[in-house]
């Protein structure tokens, strides 16, 4: 999220709420034999937004995307594009284009013929001049001008990726679907392409739906993220919402990193829940809706919310510094608590400087503001 000011992103989300949905899934399920690949998916995709499906391998992301593209028909439920149910509409009739994971460029066509492929299918036909003009602009957008007559296999991975992108956006689809488009690239190139993707999306204003299992990629690119698990959508929200208000341990774990402590709720006072761990410790965190006294829960504390000091503090936990990892602007500590195990603490350089730096083996006390920790359902 380095390059998006936080307040700007919130306004973007507010806008997207008022925009009409360009596509939607209504109770969509897809069953392959005995596998439920998509389980009652409900989702509205707003005009112009950048939405990501995020989840581990096999959770049904590609299946969801392929139903939007028209390669799979839902077993039940409706896929809507522009308010119309398109369940049985063939892919070639949908105003939707897809960037395939391995690009699927046509090996027998050169770069400009690959990009112009969709334009040549238009009826009424476009003139050669029109096609050449649009292809030229698409090449400009992906910064491949001059590569027109190159053979696609003579291009590097990143260049092929950009050709695949150009081949899709040149058709000005209402919805651009991207299935792990950056997975085949090395880390550095992936970073560059992520920024390019985001710039591109802002520049052309097409709705993007991205599939990824890389949480960093989803967090940095998306207006909204759909976290999936076993064919279901478990939570949808902006990157901040998911990070700050995860509804379950699964989401908190998948989006960012967190410390988790299991226990049962002892009491709830003013929205702050006290939970008892099995070892008898009392820990506090903000109660989330639907959890009552006696429920088995999980406390999630983000590493950067934990304060660490040499002096004992009321309600603090005494730990031993186990490991210290210097990360530049942050330092990560792994501290050991006799009952809770290893706790991950992230301290900014600012605080950590001088005598606030802790050494391995040192005795420390950790605590957190209960309002900044979350009591979640344990699954």
């Amino acid at each position, binding site marked *: 999220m380095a390059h998006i000011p936080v307040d700007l992103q919130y306004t973007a989300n507010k806008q997207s709420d008022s925009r009409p949905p360009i596509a939607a899934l209504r109770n969509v399920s897809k069953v392959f034999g005995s596998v439920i690949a998509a389980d009652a998916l409900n989702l509205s995709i707003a005009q112009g937004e950048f939405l990501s499906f995020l989840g581990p391998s096999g959770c049904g992301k590609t299946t969801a995307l392929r139903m939007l593209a028209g390669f799979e028909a839902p077993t039940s439920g409706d896929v809507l594009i522009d308010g119309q149910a398109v369940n049985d509409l063939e892919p*070639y009739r949908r105003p*939707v*284009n*897809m960037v395939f994971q391995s690009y699927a460029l*046509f*090996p027998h066509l050169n770069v400009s013929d690959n990009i112009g492929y969709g334009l040549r299918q*238009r009826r009424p036909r476009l003139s050669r001049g029109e096609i050449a003009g649009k292809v030229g602009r698409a090449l400009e957008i992906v910064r491949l001008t001059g590569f027109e007559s190159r*053979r696609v296999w003579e291009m590097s991975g990143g260049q092929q990726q950009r050709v695949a992108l150009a081949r899709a956006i040149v058709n000005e689809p209402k919805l651009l679907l991207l299935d792990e488009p950056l997975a085949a690239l090395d880390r550095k190139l992936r970073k560059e392409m992520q920024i390019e993707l985001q710039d591109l999306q802002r520049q052309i204003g097409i709705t993007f739906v991205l599939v990824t299992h890389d949480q960093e990629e989803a967090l940095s690119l998306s207006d909204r993220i759909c976290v999936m698990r076993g064919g279901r959508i478990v939570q949808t929200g902006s990157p901040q919402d998911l990070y700050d208000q995860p509804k379950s341990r699964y989401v908190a774990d998948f989006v960012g990193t967190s410390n988790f402590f299991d226990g049962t709720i002892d009491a709830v006072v003013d929205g702050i829940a006290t939970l008892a761990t099995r070892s008898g410790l009392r820990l506090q965190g903000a109660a989330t809706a639907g959890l009552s006294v006696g429920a088995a829960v999980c406390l999630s504390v983000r590493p950067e919310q934990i304060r660490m000091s040499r002096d004992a503090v009321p309600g603090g936990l005494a730990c031993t510094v186990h490991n210290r990892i210097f990360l530049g602007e942050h330092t990560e500590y792994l501290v050991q608590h006799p009952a809770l195990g290893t706790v991950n603490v992230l301290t900014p350089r600012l605080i950590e400087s001088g005598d606030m730096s802790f050494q391995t083996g040192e005795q420390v006390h950790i605590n957190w503001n209960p309002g900044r920790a979350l009591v979640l359902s344990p699954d």
Partner: protein
Amino acid sequence: MTRSERNWLLVAPAAAWFVVMLVLPLSVIFVFSFGERGPAGGYVPAFTLEQYANLPARFTAFKNTMILAPVGTIAAMLIAYPLAYQLAVRTDPKWKTILLVLVIVPFWTSILIRSYAWIFILGGRGLPALLEMVGIEGVRLIYTPFAVLIGIIYGYLPLMVFPIYVSLDRLDKRLLEASADLGAKPLRTFLTVTLPLSIPGVATGCMLVFILLMGEFLIPALLGGGKVFFVGNALVDLFLQSRNWAFGSAVAFTLIVIMLVTVTVYMRVIARLQSGRDDVSIM
């Protein structure tokens, strides 16, 4: 041993094979074709162009071969393509192997025996008899060019199906999805993606079948019944029956030259069609 000596050693077996299998027999034929028939048949050394001057005597054989070989190749290709397409693209993977084996099974028995079956089917008591029952009389099928064509297609179909099947099976199915995604209807996808990408298989199949057909003699002998004969039949006659080796050599050499010219032109055309692509090759 120097590097180049070692290279020579490595190339030697291939070179020997080339000399024994190709250069030697060809040279013999070439030399014989300028000789004369001995009084009791065989070959007598000489240098005369008489044999080549005599070629028009076998014009019909050349004409039949030059018509039926390409027509048979094209007909086999037209039938093999949909078959290979069905197998490679449409068939559930778990049935593919079984169906492929079914395509090969006919190869397990000799073409001689399989052609005899066709003699019966096309002969008087086969199809024509059936046609007579529905009132179509006087149809003659056996010992016609049509019968030979049927035999050719039947005999060479598996050889055509295989290379086409391989090129279609290798085709990345996501390219077909990409094409549909970009707005191409199924027929357009077939014409602009599937077909161009399967050309190498088609080219290989056609070449294999055509070359073998140019030397075919069994099928015309059985289904052409002496009325429709190929250059191959003429050669059998000249070498085995009338024992005119000199004239036989001239006929054989002419056939080889015609074949070389045709295949060279054909390769040029295909290479141009596929120009600049490294993901395909002919054969």
